[in-house]
């Protein structure tokens, strides 16, 4: 029996993420092949699933992803590119093959969009990746941005194609962190949160992750309920190893919240798990908690209440409520004014 039902707007987002063609439809050629091509590496567990979802979404809308040689040739689509185009290259690792849809534009342009937008895109993509992967033992963090193209369309959408590496969110002085290589297309509508993200990664260890998730799940089931105020990490940045899985799960739920709130200027990170409201572990783990998020451009600390349901291998279900009024550092309580309740279901 599922106590909560959550709705996802994932496919809907995929639909509007692809810009509607501005020239006559005859020149558009819908892609038939999968978006990820077989590359030098054998194991690509994430890509086919994402590609499939994207393909499904595309068939619904009839639009097609732009790729090199198609509608986004310079000069083809004058209106879309009259504002600005900027290409950044920091030296891509040679083994990493960018997916075909990753833009390859060479038109020089004035830097109208600040360089910050490419980092914004990469960070939003990583939050989204963590949420969709649904694996608290394999949370990723942004490592290095290698390549990005950013441009703004006439409809004031900011497109960021960014290639980057991620590393595991296991900051215990572990120098040999495995790196995953990712390419993402992130589309921001100016001022609006929840950017559309298409992301494709190589190097996320599928099998290990499932095993580690299950171990984490078993550990959490044995955790004694500790309701009330906590501070994880504590003020010196310390997390007790026995409580680390709890923090990992809280971070997983927070990833959804942070992606959902990210805009072209607002950027979030998780600071602290501040209280545990509810903790149930028969079957799925039902976790109701509060965190403090940090928003970078305003420097504000935002308290959020998050309620998630998780089971290894299953999609994450989460709903949340954040306190938006600045200056109020008190805990988020039910029924207070000025809050936004977002419900979410995974199909």
């Amino acid at each position: 029996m599922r106590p909560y039902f959550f709705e996802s707007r994932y496919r809907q987002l995929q639909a509007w993420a692809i810009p509607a063609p501005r020239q006559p439809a005859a020149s558009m050629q819908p892609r038939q092949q999968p978006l990820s091509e077989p590359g030098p590496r054998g194991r690509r567990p994430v890509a086919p699933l994402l590609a499939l979802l994207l393909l499904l979404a595309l068939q619904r809308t009839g639009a097609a992803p732009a790729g090199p040689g198609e509608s986004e040739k310079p000069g083809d689509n004058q209106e879309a590119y009259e504002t600005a185009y900027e290409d950044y290259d920091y030296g891509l690792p040679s083994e990493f093959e960018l997916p075909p849809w990753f833009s390859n534009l060479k038109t020089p342009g004035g830097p109208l969009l600040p360089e910050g937008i490419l980092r914004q895109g990469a960070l939003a993509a990583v939050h989204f990746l963590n949420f969709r992967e649904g694996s608290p033992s394999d949370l990723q963090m942004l490592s290095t941005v290698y390549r990005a193209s950013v441009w703004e369309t006439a409809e004031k959408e900011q497109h960021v194609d960014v290639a980057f590496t991620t590393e595991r969110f296991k900051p215990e002085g572990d120098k040999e962190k495995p790196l995953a290589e990712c390419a993402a297309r992130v589309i921001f509508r100016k001022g609006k949160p929840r950017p559309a993200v298409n992301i494709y990664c190589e190097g996320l260890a599928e099998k290990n992750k499932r095993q580690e998730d299950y171990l984490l799940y078993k550990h959490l089931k044995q955790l004694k309920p500790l309701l009330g105020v906590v501070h994880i990490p504590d003020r010196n940045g310390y997390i007790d190893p026995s409580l680390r899985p709890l923090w990992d799960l809280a971070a997983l739920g927070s990833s959804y919240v942070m992606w959902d709130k990210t805009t072209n200027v607002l950027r979030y990170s998780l600071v602290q798990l501040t209280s545990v409201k509810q903790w149930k572990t028969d079957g799925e783990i039902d976790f109701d908690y509060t965190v403090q998020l940090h928003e970078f451009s305003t420097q504000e600390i935002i308290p959020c209440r998050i309620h998630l349901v998780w089971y290894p291998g299953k999609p994450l279900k989460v709903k949340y409520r954040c306190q938006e009024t600045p200056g109020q550092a008190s805990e988020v309580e039910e029924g207070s004014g000025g809050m936004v309740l977002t419900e979410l279901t995974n199909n």
Partner: protein
Amino acid sequence: MKPLLGTLCLLGMLVHSGLGHHRSLVQQTQKLVDTTVTPWRSLETYSYNKYHRMEEIYQWMSQISEKYPDVVTQHFLGMTYETRPMYYLKISQPSDNTKKIIWMDCGIHAREWIAPAFCQWFVKEILQNYRDNSRIRRLLTYLDFYVLPVLNIDGYIYTWTTDRLWRKSRSSHDDGACFGTDLNRNFNSSWCSIGASKNCLDETFCGAGPVSEPETKAVSGLIESKKEDVLCFLTIHSYGQLILTPYGYTKNKSSNHEELIQVGQKAANALKAKHGTNYRVGASADILYALSGSSRDWAKDIGIPFAYTFELRDNGTYQFVLPEDQIQDTCEETMEAVLSILDDVYAKYWHSNSAGRVTSTTVALSLLVAFMSLF
């Protein structure tokens, strides 16, 4: 005597305001890691790998100046809003040379604990090594270091007693409706024009007016009075792993922007060589966000040639709550970056002078020889 009285008054105030408040918030199931409660007595046992309360930092400052009286003096800068004394340490090798000044302040934002930790580390490194280390000795030939370990003392104490994530000062506004000004939005550099808030509830509240806060007044008063001699203004923050050049309040670049970037990039390379940490270099408005009223922009605008903001570790994992086990590595790598900048500043003003003299002499001589060969 004066510092001791100050410390005693301070202890009295701290006890009154409730030092142990945070303990009641921690669950018993969570292992409590606290800094040492037993008061440490001697400098030999002072741990630079731990975060310290303000009264410990006050005590450390006195002991440092007592231990190295030839080179260190403790100076009163001003009073905070909550009437606490602000002190900076002046490190100066006695000599007949005219000295120029390197300024470094830490902890303008209360929650950025790694910054005051770095200021203390920096002082310790300089003092433990200035006799044997030729690089440091050379710098001290013509440079005095002015180090302000904690700029926002009231806020820093507040992060220990009440709210670990407090950022601003603790000044009262709107008849106590809200507290705190963002001291790094309060300087007189395009004050409150962009990237700052007029709402006292916000974290980037710029204050009642430019330089309205006593802490801002204290710092700008001193720097202003010595601005002819200040070559380098460094302000230490966290987090983000960035070396930032002017400006934040405009996309325009300073007259020596190329040089600042070059020197900054060299510093970032030196930093990375130590422990592999990546720092990015650029103007605040380009790679961080727009902001006005910052101390660094103000320093540039009054004529200080080298002005940088450092954003130390990390990159978003722990953010302000950087674990103590990262203090050492962070301080070691940052030390390399700062020394690299100081080397470049030194080379610019003292190396090139002598080189210039040699060159012009050579030119004169060769001209003379050429002239004479005509006859």
